[in-house]
């Protein structure tokens, strides 16, 4: 939002004059400093929202090859009927609960990267998820840093004090965000960013807050640690203020569904509009490990994904931020072609990734990228063969969108794709 930076300066300068009065000069210094930091991030405004589908999403029932004989044979009890799918073309259709994403597809905003996986697929939740997080399928163990963590390490000399990435609504920091020089916080809700002013008379509480901001604005010569702490305090106060203002004013007509992912994406939307300088957001939706009676559970999950995602996109469009947002979903693996005896499916391999990207960045048409993996030419274990290494998707996101060089991060070059 190009107006936001101007607004920010205007708002903070005005606020500064009102609250500090005669002590204006230090405060204006702070505003000036903050502005130059903003200037730095000006150039790289793009934001990535990564949505993890935990448990292994059944890709075959998400993007459905509804008329394929092999599909009908393999999924007698769990198939999605051809009449019910939301047709993308003659061969593929989306699960009927995904009308929101179908609309995004029709508008040319949604790409579906098919057949994504990696060599020697691991069918254990933990191993496979670690592989997606670390982008190192060859490693036997998670080595302590994830692909986004490495990207952040390499993008900036010193992240201390800044908020380049945020995990929203997770219990544990996702391994993708672990880096050596960066400490990504987890946020349960916007409330975590509320400044608690203590007790006592209202006037005193206000004065305390103003004093804290004032102290944080001073520069400490000769003690770099102190200087660093002051800058971070100032930035924290600013963040809390912005979010406080936002929190009350945050209005959207987007109909966020009343489910887990809806709430998390709404929080992400609020954080994005607060212009914190954060470029990477991570949210997770769990429950996809549908080994039995999968029909209802899977429908509910893809429905949750679709409604939450389309509300989020609507919200971003409303705030004129769509140009800066890219959303990508991934899951640690797909599921087996053949259904099991409990009307469910077991761990598999290749699946699809969904990407929502603004039209302006498009190199070619959005839509289906890559062919659907064959249902007859399967690997020795009876699972679909992948044709697109997930690191290609990562490389595309890193270089074409976030403008980070990807070779060191991914440990090699991978052919980029056309979705952004």
């Amino acid at each position: 939002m190009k107006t936001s930076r101007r607004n920010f300066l205007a708002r903070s300068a005005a606020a500064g004059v009102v609250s500090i009065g005669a002590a204006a000069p230090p405060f204006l210094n702070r505003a000036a400093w903050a502005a130059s930091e903003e200037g730095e991030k000006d150039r790289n405004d793009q934001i990535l929202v990564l949505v993890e589908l935990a448990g292994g999403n059944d890709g075959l029932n998400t993007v459905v090859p509804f008329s394929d004989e092999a599909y009908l044979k393999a999924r007698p009890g769990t198939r999605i009927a051809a009449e019910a799918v939301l047709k993308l073309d003659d061969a593929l259709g989306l699960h009927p609960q995904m009308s929101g994403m179908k609309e995004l597809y029709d508008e040319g905003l949604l790409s579906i990267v098919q057949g994504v996986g990696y060599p020697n697929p691991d069918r254990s939740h933990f191993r496979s998820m670690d592989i997606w997080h670390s982008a190192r399928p060859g490693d036997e163990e998670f080595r302590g840093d994830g692909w986004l963590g490495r990207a952040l390490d390499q993008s900036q000399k010193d992240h201390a004090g800044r908020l380049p990435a945020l995990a929203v609504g997770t219990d544990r920091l996702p391994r993708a965000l672990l880096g050596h020089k960066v400490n990504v916080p987890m946020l349960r809700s916007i409330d975590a960013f509320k400044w608690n002013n203590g007790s006592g008379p209202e006037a005193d509480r206000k004065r305390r807050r103003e004093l804290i901001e004032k102290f944080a604005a001073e520069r400490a010569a000769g003690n770099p640690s102190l200087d660093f702490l002051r800058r971070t305090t100032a930035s924290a106060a600013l963040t809390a203020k912005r979010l406080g203002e936002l929190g009350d004013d945050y209005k959207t007509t987007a109909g966020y569904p009343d489910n887990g992912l809806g709430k998390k994406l709404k929080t992400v939307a609020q954080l994005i509009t607060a212009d914190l300088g954060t470029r990477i957001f991570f949210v997770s939706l769990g429950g996809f490990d549908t080994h039995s009676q999968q029909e209802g559970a899977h429908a509910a999950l893809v429905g949750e994904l679709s409604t939450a995602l389309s509300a989020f996109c609507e919200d971003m469009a409303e705030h004129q931020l769509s140009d800066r947002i890219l959303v990508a979903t991934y899951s640690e693996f797909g599921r087996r072609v053949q259904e099991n005896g409990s009307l469910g499916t077991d761990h598999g391999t290749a699946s699809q990734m969904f990407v929502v990207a603004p039209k302006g960045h498009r190199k070619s048409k959005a839509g289906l990228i890559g062919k659907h993996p064959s249902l007859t030419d399967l690997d020795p274990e009876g699972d679909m063969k992948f044709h697109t290494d997930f690191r290609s998707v990562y490389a595309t996101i890193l270089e074409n969108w976030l403008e980070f060089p990807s070779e060191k991060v991914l440990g090699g070059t991978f052919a980029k794709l056309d979705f952004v």
Partner: protein
Amino acid sequence: MAHLLERYDSARHGWSRREATHLLWRCAAGASPSEIDRSVDEGMTKSVARLIDSQPESDEFTATENLLHRSALKSGNINSLKNWWLYRFLKTANPLAEKMTLFWHNHFATSNAKVRSTEKMDVQNALIRQHALGNFAELFRTIARDVAMLLWLDGNANRKRHPNENFAREVMELFALGVGNYSEKDIKETARAFTGWHVRNDEFWFNKVQHDAGKKTILGKSGPFKGDDVLEIFLEHPACARFVATKLLAGFVRHDPDSAMVDALAERIRAHKFEIAPVVQELISSQVFYAPTSRRALIKSPVELVVGAHRTLDGRAHLSECVQLMSDLGQNLFEPPTVKGWEGGRLWINSATMLQRANFASQVTGGERFGKFGASPRTRGSESETVTSYLDLLLAGSVSKSTHQELTNYLRKAGGSTKEQTSGLVQLIMTLPEYQLI
């Protein structure tokens, strides 16, 4: 070089509240006014000795600590064990030993997230505590066989035909030598030496069948090494003492010690044959420790923040809330994020954690979420004197004149009861960026 570690001449350069506070905060995370007074009276040598030598614990401490410990092990709940450890930090008469326990826990980082056993984590913790101010070489040898450690580093996966390098790599990179002091080949050979270091029936077990008894060449030495032999090779390697020295300096003196300091301390470590107590004693009595550039040079870890507030303000903590807060601030006891442990320093700080630290200050003074605090109003004399006395208590004094003035003005205009006024002042001081430095 060596002069850095020369004894600080307290008679000549002074032993005042500033020095006493610096010593106690670095070694004990915080201290009550009476403890600081005592240290000023006793002088440097006695104060250091009090920290290094083992002090008897009070009956109340022992009873409470036992209760919490028993309950944690009985319930098998790791969070109860965290409460117990925090209680030790808060109330022990041997805070330096607890600090060193945490220090080594960070060094030999093992997380319950994978080990999944409160009992095993407790065994490891007891082992560390036993050697915390003891001999590093002994600690190193013993912890390499610790069950929790082996489970954490996949010891059982390390087999003759299919060596798993995880254990070898982490031992070399993170426990003994540090990055850059070995080659990939060394790792492979070390892995071979450690094959058979397994766990069976919850005990260490040397699996002879799975052990690769062939000749290995590690760091220039050759032989049919077993795991124990390799540990000795590491201990003898010069990089080991330097590695330990770097960590000690980063934990006690400065976040990024220069190589001259490191070499000096490494030499002392070798001289003391890895006995940690005399090394630390020398370190906390040294010139470099009290040098102006070493004061206020470390950023408080979450443990130091919480324990410090309680020890300074004479508080009675709500243990589980404090443990949760420390975890939110990035330091989840018994569950370090990776085997690298907590990097610390500036990485503790970002806008989110800074906000939480500020909120901690307001909740400590304005509510009872984290426990009850005894910051009784010290309105001796004028507002300016009150401000000075609190600054002394919480920050060992040093803020700029203008800050002092601002605080005095605040107190002058403050309304509400006396308790609310002083609470507000304490909150302000605890939110100052200076408060985050130790």
